[in-house]
């Protein structure tokens, strides 16, 4: 998670994608494990919280808020997101050769991919995680 944060500061989208994949695989190993411990379950919990919520909705969101205003010609963050999501030809054409725009577009699409990631029919395999977590939760845990 620390590496992913560092790569986000560096805006190295390729390395971010690799770090996200590593975290996802670590999460899957816990879920696939035959005898995971309570500590393992909480490692998985940390990963799903980080990947599913904290990273895209806090870190990526704030990073885009800070970086999109540096694109020239100027574009608001809402227009930027709308242009990418709607594949708005007029705006995409205007920024077709703009490296900052494209780098932030790739960054946003990476975060969006996490928000749409599903496995075994549930978002971020959360149903399997929830079953595991409930099973291992100690009595009186608070």
């Amino acid at each position, binding site marked *: 998670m620390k590496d992913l944060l560092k790569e986000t500061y560096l805006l190295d989208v390729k390395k971010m994608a690799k770090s996200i994949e590593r975290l996802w695989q670590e999460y899957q190993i816990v879920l696939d494990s035959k005898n995971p411990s309570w500590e393992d379950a909480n490692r998985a919990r940390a990963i799903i919280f980080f990947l599913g919520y904290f990273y895209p*909705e806090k870190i*990526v969101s704030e990073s*885009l808020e800070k970086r999109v205003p540096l694109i020239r010609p100027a574009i608001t963050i809402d227009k930027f997101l709308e242009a990418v*999501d*709607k594949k708005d030809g007029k705006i995409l054409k205007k920024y077709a050769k703009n490296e900052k725009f494209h780098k932030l577009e790739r960054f946003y699409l990476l*975060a*969006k991919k996490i*928000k749409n990631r599903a496995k075994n029919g549930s978002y971020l395999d959360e149903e399997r995680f929830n079953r595991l977590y409930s099973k291992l939760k100690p009595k009186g845990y608070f």
Partner: protein
Amino acid sequence: MNKVIQGKATVVRSRRDYPKIKSETILISKETHPDLVLVIRNIKGIVVEVDNRLCHAAIVAREFGIPILMGVKEAAKRFKTGDRVAVDFERKTIRKMK
């Protein structure tokens, strides 16, 4: 895009509620789930409790050009499926209609 829409609300509390959406509706939820796209043709508006440009609901709303109202506290508790509601996206309000 209309600034105000009216219609029947569907309150979604889990992903299992999405397949129950069979006709046009205004979706009300704490947050949305990727299964939303399975019934997206019937969604004329989205009202969610979360408020973030990168939450799933905001992304889907932008992709499909659906109006969205975010940051409505306890929306999923205040309304129930079948309520007729009016959502004003400019004033950022939702109210139950008689």
